[in-house]
């Protein structure tokens, strides 16, 4: 990545919020300049008092001073508010963009990247950016305004003083920043020691019964204290460094203050400056302390933000291998399917074995097909190809005569529907689980769909009906009930081609009855391919396809194959096992 590309990308992010950025810039300018005013007022006050100015003028100066003090508080709140607001607005857009992008990436990407890792990239890395804006950038800008302001004001008072201070300031900044950059490692060391100590405690609590009945309690305490000793050493290590940093940066300012006072002596003797100005010079060396300290404390945020932005750009650079340049649309009504010499092999393996090897098939509009085959026969891959989750190595699939690679993905997704074996449920309401967060689906639509699938009493029987909330990752529903949710999801969208991966696990008879009924209603009038795990399912379908090691072993009308001597399907029926997965090598 070109150096600085991440900062350019960062600036790009701010572009949509130009107006807010401008407002904030103005606020920051004022906020940075305000600390300069106080010492100036006191300097005027001193000089005015020595000159014997009127009480009225002195009172005015004092009142302005109070006003400035209050204004500073107000401005600091304004800065905090606008900056935080801006930071989160900008980064929330980035979060949405990233999430959308990640949802569109290939299956292989999702297989190699855990959801937890993705969360840390979409939220964690991006939060480093918003922290950078809200907590570092604004402070940095205000501090720079203050520091430049100090130099400028003093230049006007006496150019030699101004230049001298500028030189001193440069040295002070260089010293303070150089030192702070080292402080991070030691803090990490202390955290690690504490983490190990707490891990040990947790383990001892988990094994408390074993310790008790074997008289090991005092042993646990002795080893815990050894771990605590390490915590103390790490803490002392960190503090040693912290103290050294504090002392050095403090000394820089003490020396600065003393030098300013020494300069005052010289200039006052020359008669170049007034006593008020002498005070001003000294006080300005003191007010530099706060902005510089703040800046130095937060420099690590810059590194974290830069790292976050780099990783974010990397994530955005990941692209999908599914080509979505097709613009064709499918004609309305049920879809016919023709599969033509379809092959697939995983590209990322050294010795690609074809998972599917030259499959051809025709399925008329409105027909239903059951697919049988053992694990590894290519059923799942066939399903993924039909859904365009992966691209074929060779051959093609056409829906209603149009090659699917020419159809826009949006149209394809709108016309096809799938119920996978492991239905994903979410820790939210039943309603959200059914609509998949689509708020345009009304409760009335939802109830109508449920009623048609004969599932209304099932949902109404839940503690809070549609508002019933599932646990994390949808815990609280059985696998069979998950299938009911998935069937309803599908029914709500009314697709013209349906792909079902039947649940292979056993479900209770009542749910089984509901699933079968809902399933039959769903398939009526639609083209469907069912990856079947039970022979009883296939019996209700028009055609059967038996796959073996990526090839078609058998394909035909269910009613024909059932009675045809020597057919694989017929043999399976004869064995009488219902669950096909349990069958040995055919």
């Amino acid at each position, binding site marked *: 990545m070109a150096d600085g590309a991440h900062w350019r990308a960062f600036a790009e992010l701010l572009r949509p919020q130009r107006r807010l950025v401008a407002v904030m810039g103005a606020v920051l300018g004022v906020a940075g300049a305000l600390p300069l005013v106080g010492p100036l007022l*006191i300097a005027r006050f001193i000089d005015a008092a020595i000159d014997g100015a009127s009480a009225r003028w002195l009172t005015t100066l004092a009142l302005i001073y109070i006003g400035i003090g209050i204004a500073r508080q107000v401005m600091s709140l304004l800065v905090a508010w606008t900056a*935080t607001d801006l930071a989160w607005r900008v980064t929330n857009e980035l979060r949405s963009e990233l999430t959308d992008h990640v949802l569109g990436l290939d299956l292989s990407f999702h297989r190699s990247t855990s959801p937890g890792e993705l969360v840390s990239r979409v939220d964690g890395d991006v939060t480093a950016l918003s922290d950078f804006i809200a907590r570092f950038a604004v402070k940095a800008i205000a501090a720079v305004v203050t520091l430049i302001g100090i130099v400028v004001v003093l230049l006007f008072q006496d150019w030699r003083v101004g230049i001298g201070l500028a030189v001193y300031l440069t040295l002070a900044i260089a010293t303070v920043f150089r030192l702070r950059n080292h402080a991070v490692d030691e803090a990490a060391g202390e955290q690690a020691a504490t983490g190990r100590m707490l891990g040990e405690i947790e383990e001892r609590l988990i094994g408390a019964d074993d310790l008790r*009945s074997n008289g090991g309690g005092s042993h646990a305490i002795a080893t815990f204290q050894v771990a*605590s000793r390490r915590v103390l050493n790490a803490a002392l290590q960190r*503090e040693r460094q912290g103290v050294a940093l504090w002392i050095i940066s403090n000394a820089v300012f003490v020396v600065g*203050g*003393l030098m300013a006072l020494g300069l005052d002596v010289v200039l006052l003797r020359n008669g170049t400056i007034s006593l008020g100005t002498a005070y001003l010079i000294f006080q300005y060396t003191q007010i530099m302390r706060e902005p510089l300290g703040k800046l130095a404390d937060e420099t690590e945020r810059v590194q974290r933000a830069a790292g976050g932005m780099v990783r974010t750009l990397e994530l955005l650079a990941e692209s999908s291998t599914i080509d979505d340049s097709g613009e064709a649309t499918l004609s309305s009504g049920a879809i016919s399917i023709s599969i033509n010499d379809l092959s697939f092999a995983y590209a990322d393996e050294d010795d690609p074995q074809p998972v599917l090897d030259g499959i051809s098939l025709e399925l008329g509009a409105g027909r239903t097909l059951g697919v049988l085959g053992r694990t590894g026969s290519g059923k799942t891959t066939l399903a993924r190809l039909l859904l365009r989750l992966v691209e074929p190595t060779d051959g093609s699939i056409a829906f209603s005569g149009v090659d699917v690679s020419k159809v826009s993905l949006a149209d394809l997704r709108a016309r096809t529907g799938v119920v996978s074996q492991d239905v994903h449920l979410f820790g939210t309401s039943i309603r959200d689980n059914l609509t998949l967060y689509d708020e345009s689906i009304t409760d009335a639509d939802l109830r109508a769909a449920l009623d048609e699938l004969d599932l209304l009493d099932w949902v109404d029987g839940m503690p809070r009906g549609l508002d019933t909330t599932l646990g994390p990752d949808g815990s609280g529903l059985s696998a069979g009930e998950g299938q009911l949710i998935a069937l309803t999801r599908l029914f709500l969208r009314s697709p013209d081609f349906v792909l079902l991966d039947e649940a292979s696990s056993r479900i209770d008879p009542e749910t089984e009855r509901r699933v079968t009924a809902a399933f039959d209603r769903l398939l009526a009038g639609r083209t469907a391919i069912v990856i079947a795990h039970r022979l009883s399912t296939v019996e209700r379908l028009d055609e059967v396809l038996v796959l073996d090691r990526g090839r078609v072993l058998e394909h035909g009308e269910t009613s024909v194959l059932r009675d045809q001597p020597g057919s694989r399907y017929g043999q399976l029926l004869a064995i009488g096992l219902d669950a096909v997965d349990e069958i040995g090598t055919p």
Partner: protein
Amino acid sequence: MSVTEATESRDRRDEGFAIPTMRAGWRVGVFRSGLWLRSWLTWLAFYMTPLATGWFLKQVFDALESDDGVGSWLLAIGLTETARMVLFAVAIWFVVRWWVAALTMLRTNMLHAQTVSGGPSRASLPAGPAEAISRFHDDARDAVIWSDSWLDGFGNIAFGASALFVMATISVRAALIVLIPLAIVTVVIGWIRPRLYAASEADREATGTVNAFLGETFAGMLAFRLAAREPAVIRRLEQHTERRRKTAVRHVVLEQSVDGLTSTTADVSTGLILLVLVPSVRRGDISVGDMALFVTYVETLGNVPRFLSRLVTAREQAKVSLRRMGALVAPGRFDDLLAARPVAIDRGDAPVHRDPDPERNRLFHLEVTGLTARYPSTEGGISEIDLSIDGGEFVVITGAVGSGKSTLLRALAGLVEHQRGTIRWNGETIDDLGAWFVPPNVAHLPQVPRLFSESLADNITLGRAPDELDEVIDVTTLRTDLDEMPDGVETRVGARGLRLSGGQAQRVATARSLITRPELLLVDDLSSALDVETERSLWSHVRARGTTVLAVSHRQFVLDMADRVITLDDGYVVSEST
């Protein structure tokens, strides 16, 4: 829902005792009284230095005005500031050592209550181990912060009072007028603090929601993609992130209000001083040096409200934390949490060793009568168990799953409270089973033993002298496994022993139960750990030692070996055969 209920009931139970917050703060402080006292003194001196700096600065400006003797005052400032830096380093050196020692004291006391075999201090865990960790970490820290806030609070109050006194010697008006902003800001910060705390909690919770939503969405991405519901997901995500933007803004603004008030207090105080001094200034009663002194003092005085309000907040949080930690020590024995148990973490601390095992009591006869231990919530447990075992006997318990076999062993080991029943060891009634049923009297080998992330040897000896280590390693056939490990018995077994296979872990735990040559061995099903041959030789070995055994087993050869077989059903003894 159930989680909330559990939390509520726990909170209600915790309400049962009053928290002596002040006393706890004191006891945490004086746990290392020498370090604490030295921290007090150095921090006090540290907080007082601006008093001297301000006064010297006044002399400098007065000398500037009259044009003489500036150099010595500048030197005085330099020396004071140097002293201040030295004091800072010394104070940190004391306070960190006190701090970690105090944390270790609280943690040691909780760990003691949770792992001690018997006695009145023994306590059970109110919630899961993971939840308890926050009590060892955050709550212990909050209690120490409370004690620590006294140091800063005292230093600041002492500075404030002295500064006001010095200011009053120059101008009483100036000193008095400063009290107004100080009082107002103290009240305002006191008002903001709890809101700030609530806002930061809300912010954390909103972040948790965003993360949970994203995690689930990525895990179930296919569902959204295949249903073309990505836009709906993004809209929902935006609702969550929008909410978090609002909580974050509220949090930051409140945080900034507290932070900013320090300089605001100083600014407003300075302005007010200038205002009331106008007449004196015009009369020439107030010098430029006086004004420099006021400004310097007032800048530091601006910190006082923050430290005062911190005392209040620290007290509130300590109260909650002490209550939560109190739930980890025995009910009604809150002072166990503050006990001055030995802590050995610093140089000069006397090392802490494991306690010696209790004295061995030869077992001639064990008599159990009417032992009943039923779990309140479930059906399981044991009822009216009578057992009479002679020293050296080999008794096997068998029965279906859920018949109470494990509960019987656990009740004897004192791990399950029993409601009724008497246990006599050589005729002597044992009241505190937990304290008595430990090695070398008794060892208990549970069905699922737990290991710890220390060396294999330590897992077996639990800190005892390794006299019999070799023998138990041979008996449990660990020798061949050890030969393949890089560091032999010193091999570290990883968190919870996860680097070992299931069978290895079981055998390590078996070795642990044998190493003290206990009088009575309570064994809950060895079959998953050992093959038939090894188990057979192990039992012969144990029998040869004359150890009395009460073992749960289903293996036929074990039943054949037994002197007696007791069959349990639904918690009752249904048959006994020899």
